[in-house]
């Protein structure tokens, strides 16, 4: 029922398709604009926001620097509290653990709370192939799953669907998956949410096995954390007898008290709220409360590869808030699907090559170029990931990898030049001046990259460059 990102075309091709979809672009514009505004308001009310960002980055860096020790402590704490810890080198190993647990309990379905890690490893497809249905329970994920679709945004995965489309999907597809939608279902968001509540409650009350991810894993106490809005997370974490949580190893924070940074940074950066409606924390098994069999899968799947990259390892600080997506001018125009991965937007443009390795496939290698290096992502990132610097470094790595090919691809040549120009602020300003602002963009990109420019409608370069505008805005006290 669900689609997969495997074998997606490289970014420029996928972006061309997305750019042609007017509905998608208008939904995205509305969504990213709304979230940006909400975020700005709640961030402005925190006096020590910069202190929090600095602390957030430092906690993650400290955790990553001694990740081996923290993982061992986490394993001990979890085991002492009755959880079973599994280690998975890659997607297949992680999926196999979940399938084995489901099989041991003789179930043919599991309920799931939205998790990027389980999506990254293709868990739903893996289970489906083995006759186990994995029901997504976030409203947006439900819409995506019933629509046989792919999520397009970390936070609002169904942002590419409008209310009328959602009503049609519910009417046509809910019946085959369980309790059907009411026949007179309207496209009012309240009605649609009500239909989802009834459809999913049937599944929550029946399910014996649940699968989740975790936003944080606290090493010293063995505490896992799920941050959410709808309550489907609480349902999955509380009602079934068995819970399997798939956790990327980079989710570790050393101590319980470190959460006091992230519980402030994440909700404000993410949904633009002072606090998200629900956060659940649990440490192993609690007698008489919640699942009495608890499994934790510690997942590598490329994270140690990313950790070995001296420039790129900071990407593992990411707390998946999606603030960088919402400020990204490229993302706003092409949407998440064009990135061909569960991790879209600026963070996806660095995380995917870091996890998979540069030179592994053309799709991955095209991602570091899916950016104008405007720097807005760094400005909003709650853990101060310097995405532009990582992008530039990855471009260098892509060019190096391709240099070994006998005939350099046109992109490699151009991108080497671009990496050189974009790699230094002074060169870039010079380039902007040389290109002549106010001229068609093709004058300075078009002739070099015909295949790229043919997918653009060649906007006129604004009289003022983004970088110059940014400097001026900030000088005038403007805020993103």
């Amino acid at each position, binding site marked *: 029922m669900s689609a997969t990102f495997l074998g997606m075309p490289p970014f420029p091709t996928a972006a061309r398709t997305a750019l042609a979809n007017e509905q998608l672009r208008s939904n995205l514009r*509305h*969504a990213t604009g*709304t*979230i940006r505004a909400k975020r700005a308001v709640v961030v402005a009310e925190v006096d*020590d926001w910069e*202190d*929090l960002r600095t*602390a957030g980055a*430092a906690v993650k860096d*400290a955790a*990553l*620097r001694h990740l*081996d020790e923290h*993982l061992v402590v986490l394993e001990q704490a979890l085991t002492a*509290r009755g959880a079973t810890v599994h*280690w998975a*080198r890659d997607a297949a190993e992680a999926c196999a653990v979940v399938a084995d647990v489901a099989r041991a309990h003789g179930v043919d379905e599991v309920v799931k709370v939205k998790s990027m890690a389980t999506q990254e490893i293709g868990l739903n497809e893996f289970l489906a192939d083995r006759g186990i249905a994995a029901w997504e329970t*976030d*409203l*947006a994920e439900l819409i995506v799953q019933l629509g046989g679709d792919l999520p397009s945004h970390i936070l*609002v995965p*169904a942002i590419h669907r409008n*209310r009328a489309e959602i009503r049609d999907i519910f009417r046509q597809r809910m019946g085959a998956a369980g309790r059907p939608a009411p026949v007179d279902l309207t496209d009012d*968001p*309240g009605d649609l*949410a009500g239909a*989802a509540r009834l459809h*999913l*409650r049937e599944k929550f*009350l029946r399910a014996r096995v649940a699968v989740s991810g975790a936003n944080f894993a606290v090493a010293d*106490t063995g505490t896992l954390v799920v941050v959410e*809005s*709808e*309550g*489907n997370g*609480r*349902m999955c*974490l*509380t*009602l079934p007898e068995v819970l399997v949580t798939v956790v990327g190893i980079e989710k570790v924070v050393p101590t319980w008290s*470190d959460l006091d940074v992230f*519980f402030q940074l994440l*909700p404000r950066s993410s949904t633009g709220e*002072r*606090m*998200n*409606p*629900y*956060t*659940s*924390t*649990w*440490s192993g098994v*609690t007698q*008489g*409360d919640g699942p009495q069999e608890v499994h934790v899968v510690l997942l*590598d799947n490329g994270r*140690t*590869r990313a950790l*070995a990259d001296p420039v790129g390892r900071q990407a593992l600080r990411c707390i998946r808030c999606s603030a960088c997506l919402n400020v990204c001018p490229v993302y706003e125009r092409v949407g998440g699907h064009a990135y061909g991965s569960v991790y879209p937007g600026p963070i996806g443009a660095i995380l995917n090559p870091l996890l998979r390795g540069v030179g592994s496939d053309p799709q991955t290698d095209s991602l570091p170029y899916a950016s104008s290096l405007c720097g807005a992502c760094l400005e909003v990132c709650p853990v101060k990931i310097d995405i532009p610097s990582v992008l530039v470094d990855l471009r260098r790595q892509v060019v190096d990898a391709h240099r070994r090919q006998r005939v350099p691809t046109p992109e490699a040549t151009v991108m080497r030049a671009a990496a050189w120009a974009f790699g230094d602020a002074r060169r870039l300003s010079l380039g902007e001046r040389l290109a002549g602002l106010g001229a068609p963009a093709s004058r300075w990109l078009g002739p070099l990259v015909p295949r790229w420019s043919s997918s653009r409608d060649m906007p006129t370069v604004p009289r003022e460059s983004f970088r110059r505008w940014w400097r001026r805005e900030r000088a005038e006290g403007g805020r993103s």
Partner: protein
Amino acid sequence: MSARDDILAAVRAAVATAPEPPAVPRAYRGHPSPEGLVDLFLERVADYRATVMRCAPGDLLATVERALGRRRSVIVPRGLPIELPYATTDSGHTATELDRFDAVVTTAAVGIAQTGTLVLDHGPGQGRRALSLVPDRHVCLVRAGQVVSGVPEAIARLDPGRPQTWISGPSATSDIELSRVEGVHGPRTLIVVLVDGA
């Protein structure tokens, strides 16, 4: 080698030459508590479109009865500080049985003023996690003395060994064209009763 050994070895190799990061600056901690904590708490709770009620300790029972309205299908945990004659005390009901109750009344462990958050650590008076999740109306009692200023103060007070539920308003979604809808899977109505002078 086992997956565990492989992953740990890969981590060690990856960070072997990485620089030691500086100590974590904790400047964000230890701000003095602002005046009017309880008022701020209630204002922020109300911002999430939760209902807020406030009473003296002696009026607690009457206030809870008002919060419940005419609902008599009410479940409560052991250790609730008030006695509701018509309420059922939780004795390990199944989720399906919990689904038949209209309302649940619990206490909380901590209230956070700056974010308008209630934290339940599911001790006596709060009940196991399913109890405050399945019924559609949650009436939650908070004593004024339980309200702290911000997230750091709350984290410092709470025991990570206990399961916790942090609640900021009723469940909500903005997944459909970003219009906010209150009430998806958790209780659709949240009523916070603040008990003064306690």
